[in-house]
């Protein structure tokens, strides 16, 4: 994209459209970040009507509901899923795989990559610690990736595979010797019903949780790598080159991320988080409006 912009002003651009599933403050803030970066961005209110009448465009599907609508509505143009987790993205795409439109969907996942989270853990603890991870069949494929990433940053990884439907809090006993837990997005583990119990249980053990997001940090996790709305918008701009060229890039984790810390939790667990750990991450280059 940057290259295209630098090449000259006369390039015809494909229109950009944003699909939302609600008007929550979070959605509005994400929209704001996209609009700031993409001046001509329009918001689609009726996806089906849009599919019937408009010519090709590039669609930003903001959140899971928007992705469901976009991937099942026969839109003319590629869909870039934003702010939907990897697991959810894959579920939605798999469900829509029978349709003709699913092939033109890619994503920047909502969550920071496991590599980023493990880099953050290494920076917080400043030594080799054991990292416990609960995986289910839905996330079991991440095992090798986690092991490799942990090895790269000098951490020890303890993976426990939990059965579907298991009591997650009791399953945490299997990871009781780990110095820290890494929370990986998994709907069957981290749900509204379970997250409070998980956080309280780990507090009782004095075991910090790192991940999944800025929201979980606010709820009581120690820290997390996360991509802000501005980070995602910047990476979206970089993907537009390929999308405009008709190529559908691989879905991917955010390239840009930063660190959220719950200082109250850190103090409570007697963990001092250095400025180096807080400033960890990769920041996008200064934005240029499209």
């Amino acid at each position: 994209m940057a290259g295209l912009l630098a090449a000259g002003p006369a390039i015809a651009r494909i229109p950009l459209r944003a699909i939302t599933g609600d008007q929550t403050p979070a959605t509005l803030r994400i929209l704001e970040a996209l609009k700031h970066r993409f001046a001509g961005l329009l918001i689609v209110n009726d996806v089906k009507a849009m599919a019937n009448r408009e010519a090709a465009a590039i669609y930003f599907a903001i959140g899971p509901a928007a992705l469901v609508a976009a991937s099942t509505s026969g839109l003319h143009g590629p869909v870039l899923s934003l702010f939907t987790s990897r697991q959810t993205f894959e579920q939605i795409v798999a469900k829509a795989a029978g349709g003709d439109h699913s092939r033109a969907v890619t994503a920047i996942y909502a969550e920071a990559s496991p590599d980023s989270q493990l880099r953050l853990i290494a920076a917080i603890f400043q030594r080799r610690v054991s990292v416990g991870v609960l995986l289910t069949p839905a996330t079991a494929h991440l095992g090798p990736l986690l092991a490799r990433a942990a090895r790269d940053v000098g951490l020890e990884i303890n993976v426990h595979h939990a059965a579907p439907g298991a009591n997650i809090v009791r399953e945490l006993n299997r990871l009781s010797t780990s110095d820290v837990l890494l929370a990986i997005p998994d709907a069957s583990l981290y749900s509204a019903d379970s997250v409070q119990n998980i956080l309280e249980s780990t507090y009782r053990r004095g075991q910090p949780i790192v991940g999944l997001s800025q929201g979980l940090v606010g709820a009581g996790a120690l820290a997390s790598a996360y991509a802000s709305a501005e980070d995602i918008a910047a990476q979206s701009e970089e993907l537009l080159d390929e999308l405009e060229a008709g190529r559908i890039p691989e879905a991917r984790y955010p390239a840009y991320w930063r660190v959220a810390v719950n200082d109250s939790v850190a103090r409570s667990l007697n963990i001092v988080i250095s400025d180096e750990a807080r400033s960890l991450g990769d920041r996008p280059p200064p934005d240029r409006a499209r």
Partner: protein
Amino acid sequence: MLTRIEPPRGAATWTSFPRRITRLRSIMLAPLVAGIPALAAEAYPEGSDAEMLPSVVTPTRLRQPLRDVPASVTVITAEMLARMGIVNVPDALRLVPGMQVTESSGNGILINYHGTNNRLPRRLNVLVDGISVYRPGLSQIQWAQLPVSIDDIERIEVTRGPSSPAYGPNSMMAVVNIITKHPADVERASMTAGAGDHGVRRIHTRVAGNFGRTSMHLAASAESTHGFDAFTDQAQGHDTTSAKRLLARSQTTIDERTRLEGEMAYVEGSNESPFKGDFEDYADMRLRDFYVGSTLTTRLSSRHELQLRASYSDHQTRQEWVACFPQAAYLPEMFSLWQANPNYANAIAAGQIPSGGTSADDLLAARAIVAIRGLGSAAFQPLCAMANQNLNESRFDVELQDTYITSEQLRFVTGVGLRHQRAQSQTFLGGAASNSLYRLFGNVEYKPSRLLTLNIGAHAEHDPIVGWSLAPRGGANLHISPNQTLRVAVSRGLRTPDLAEQHANFTYAGPVVSPGFDSNRMVRFFQSAKSPGNMRNEELISTEVGYLATAPAWGLSVDMKIFEDRLRHLISEVVTVAGFTPTNNNSTTLRGAELQAATSWSPDWSGFLNYAYLDNVDATTFWERTQYSRHSGSLGVAHSIGGGWRWSLAYYGASGNGDGESRYGRTDLTIGRRFLSACCNAEFGLTLRRLDNTVTTYILSGPTLESSLDSRFQTLAWLRASF
């Protein structure tokens, strides 16, 4: 009988969750699609989550990180206990710098922070999930019959210093807060079995489940030990100790702001008494304890929490034995004479003619001599009768605690409470005694800047005899860097005299069991003791300067302190039937330094070093130096080899400078392996133990006593499985 009979000693939502998780934080985004992970990305301000976090709860009743605590604290986790092969609480407390642990027999476990009086280790409070196991009648803690097994314990927090400002007068020197495993956290089922030399046997099993909004577990355990192999003048050991327990714990989430926790424990145990006298058989003890408690916690707002706690405990001690003294010892005339002038009675019992008393004493002596002569030669023939030290004790406690966070800078905890305690014993009290105590307490934490945390707290209690007493504390923690804190604390600790000290009416009476005598005949031993009933509180003024530091790259935490404890108004006398004239006349001063260091420098290696230097000076009675080690500490290292194997090596030692007190030294090598599978966990451990000395010496009431083992080596093994 003169020296023998004493009281028993004692989303995928990667970001957001619905609003009902308000206790953690109100999160504003609801799921966009039912059953599908939610959208999120709301930024949440940092802040007030800490009040719900169980960092260190004990020292001020506020949940505080160590850097803000105005006291030195030792935290021992279940993982550490398992790693080091520790299988009982007294051994766990050897990990606490300055904690003096003396084992006079399998059940004669005498523990006090900084020692002092070996006969009366009653200046330390022990809480199990907030319920005190410190008995109201004779201030005892039955360590062998605690309501929890080592397998029930999640962690032990020891506040090393006066905790009366938070937990009241019985927490004078320190408080040991035993926190059991939470019912929601434990495995669905587990079983542990262990055995070792000296008749060590233990078994523990637990089941847990969730029932709607309630999590609960039920644990049953049994353990026993044969104890020592020989005692002073006793060629055979007679100190077998056993305990059987049931423990149930539950938590019910009533709504998003309110939860109810319940706990119930039942313990049955027996303690063989290692000694018997010329005239008496072994005075073995049977114990039965029952505890029930409940805590209702409700969060009125994100900054305001109320907690109502009520507990009841009942302790029944049965200690009965046969005593065969000369018949003259049971004469009512001798009893009357003893009450008038014990020296006269002792002289006559020794076959001497007393003198120097009043004319009334002389008259009573003449009557006693006439009565003895009336018995003829039978006066010196033994008459066997039952003696007992049976004791029923109970305590009801209710307390309301209010925690309020005005800001990140200012937090309060305040509360009121009532404790009603009762003891019933014909032997110790001549019936029953009870009292009701009222208390008010509070602590303020104020952070005027990021560099400073101030704590001011106090506990006021009203005792019917002592009146109002106040135990205040002030502390300042200066955070000289994110990893370093300097701490200064001054506090006053108190111990309220127990029911026996205030109300003792000590006599031995029981039915005759000698053949040929009327079994309905009751006799009473001639000696007796009565408390003056005007005892005041023991007092401790403690000053400490501490330093806390962490080095994350080494996984290292260090806590050091220097301290001075000035103990005043000490009641050093023990309740004995041969003479009990308690006073508040004794005092001593303790000065020293302590170091506590722990490191976990990799997932495979960890270690600890604890050391205490103690000077016990200016003691007004040698009894306050009978439990005293100038040097004590522990040192250990643990290593995970791989493949589930691990080992640990630890040394625990105490120099034993107290009067009659021997040195203690122990080396433990523990090897274990953990097996993990999809369905279950299993692990086993083997501890090889070597004692530096096979003989333990100590003073309890008279000359120095000895407890000895045949071998300095001991082996302990255990196996655990969970599902």
